[in-house]
């Protein structure tokens, strides 16, 4: 009896939490289909009176969302690809290769994780300007081609793989390079999936950095383009909601598909053994 009651309480709290979390999304979705009158009505309606894609058409006409979308994809693919590649190499080096100062270097890298990205913005900004990359897509990619956190997660996984596998491969004639790509990387697939997904989400949602280094319309990514759109469409919240829906839906779909990998991979990479 008591157990049933505590279970009931737990579910009640979880359901309430879920509703609070989902409410803004629900509001965004439904508002994206409302007319200007409906959205300004008070008290507000829960649902639009009829479904029309009118808001989406108008929003797309007001700003080059297709261009933003392509930019976002390019930036995401390049930075995720490069980050994954460099993290794999670094994690392998720190896990397997013997070189002087290995542990000291790794410890100091991990310590660097403490520094928030915001503190690096100014130095990164001047670097980008000095390189003449201001207001170009590479400015969005270059600072995001490596990651200490992902290196750390991967190294933990690599460390958990038995030495005997490495020596078997070496005796079978494998170089380090071949061992890394033929044995370690396929084995690390769950951890890698996690890393790639987390990284893709972060890249897709990145807002602050693009705001500093991108000004022209043609080089904006979705979140930054959307931000500009809020001022231009300030008096049309229903258009803003339609545009937001377009940005958020791919992420939600991705997350739903990949949910179990994200949780599993972080749990696995963090633990040893």
């Amino acid at each position, binding site marked *: 009896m008591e157990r049933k009651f505590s279970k009931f309480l737990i579910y009640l709290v979880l359901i309430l939490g879920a509703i609070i979390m989902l409410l803004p999304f629900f509001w965004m979705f439904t508002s994206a289909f409302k007319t200007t009158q409906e959205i300004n009505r008070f008290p507000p309606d829960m649902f639009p009176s009829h479904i029309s894609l009118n808001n989406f058409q108008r929003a797309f006409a007001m700003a080059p969302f297709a261009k933003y979308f392509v930019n976002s994809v390019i930036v995401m693919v390049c930075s995720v690809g490069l980050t994954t590649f460099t993290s794999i190499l670094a994690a392998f080096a720190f896990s397997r290769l013997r070189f002087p100062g290995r542990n000291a270097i790794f410890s100091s890298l991990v310590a660097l994780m403490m520094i928030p990205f915001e503190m690096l913005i100014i130095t990164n900004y001047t670097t980008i300007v000095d390189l003449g990359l201001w207001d170009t897509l590479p400015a969005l990619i270059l600072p995001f081609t490596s990651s200490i956190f992902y290196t750390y997660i991967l190294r933990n996984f690599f460390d958990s793989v*038995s030495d*005997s596998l490495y*020596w078997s491969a*070496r005796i079978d004639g494998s170089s380090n390079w071949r061992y890394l790509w033929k044995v370690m990387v396929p*084995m690390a697939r769950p951890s890698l999936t996690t890393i790639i997904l987390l990284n893709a989400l972060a890249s897709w949602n990145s807002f602050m950095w693009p705001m500093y280094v991108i000004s022209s319309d043609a080089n904006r990514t979705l979140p930054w383009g959307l931000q500009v759109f809020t001022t231009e469409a300030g008096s049309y919240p229903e258009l803003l909601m339609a545009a937001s829906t377009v940005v958020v839906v791919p992420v939600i779909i991705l997350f739903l598909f990949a949910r179990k990998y994200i949780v599993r991979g972080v749990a696995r990479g963090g633990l040893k053994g």
Partner: protein
Amino acid sequence: MRVVLDHITKRFADVTAVSDFSATLNDGELVCLLGPSGCGKSTLLNMLSGILPVSDGKIFFDDEDVTMLPPEQRGIGLVFQNYALYPHMTVLGNICFPLETQHVPKEERLARANEIAKLVHVDMLMNRRPAELSGGQQQRVAIARALVKNPRLLLLDEPLSNLDARLRLEMREEIRRIQQRTGVTTIFVTHDQEEAMSISDHIVLMKLGVLQQNDLPQNLYNEPANQFVADFLGNPPINNLPGTVSGGAFITEEGDGVVKMPLFEGIADGRKVNLSVRSESFVLDPDGPLACEVTRVYQMGKEEMAYFKLGECDFRAYIDADEGLKVGNRVRLNLKKRGVFVFDRETGERIK
């Protein structure tokens, strides 16, 4: 291929795992590297495979000095205790892996993988992954992967210790069969003396990184070089009676037995020794030198395993069941010629 270990030493930061180890292993033989846990067997094997560099000494494969050769150039196959199969590859993928690194053409690769899989009886498991195999099957796959590139030397590090008792017996016969079929020189590491006795052509016994004896299995048992070898081999373990030598005879420290045997002639008076006797080397003899009491008797078919007490010293012996020994009997025992050794009690050295 003949393997020569020439004064091999391996020092780690705080221990010398192998010290001044010299041995020659004959071509085509299955040699067991035997010794208690932590005596340096894996260390020695890893130096042979090139995983560990030697601190001192040289290794020869036939006449080639391979001491400095990296593992991939030594032409060896290695099976680890945990098998170390690649978990994301199928059995076929695992067996083919060494051939892929050698750029063997695909058709030949498949042919050779299939042939070796048949030999070790895993040909019906080719598309499974390691996680879908039993311990014994993983073991076979690991052996197939080590053999597929036709190594000059096959190294097995405690290959049976992860298997249950019944499978262990079966796999040890299998390893023997596969080794004899391929004729590959094989070094088999184990801490199990029975395993070593049952399958090897030669046994190399070591203790704390030092070679004790390199000999035929029956010689290790019948002619142990020192106390450690005598103690390590044999089940039940050998019986050790402490005593001293006096006037060409052995005086037991416990009880008051005096054993006169030609064995003791020529040993200096007062030397402290162990008289070590295999359990099958006692006989009942009313005129025998050892007066003892029977403390326990176990029926074992035609023979009985009897426990005797001589002063404070216990020992076990096989006695003919017809003698009808009873607990509490006082009997006298004599010694046979075979299976009786004298060791110096301080140094453990055999005195002949």
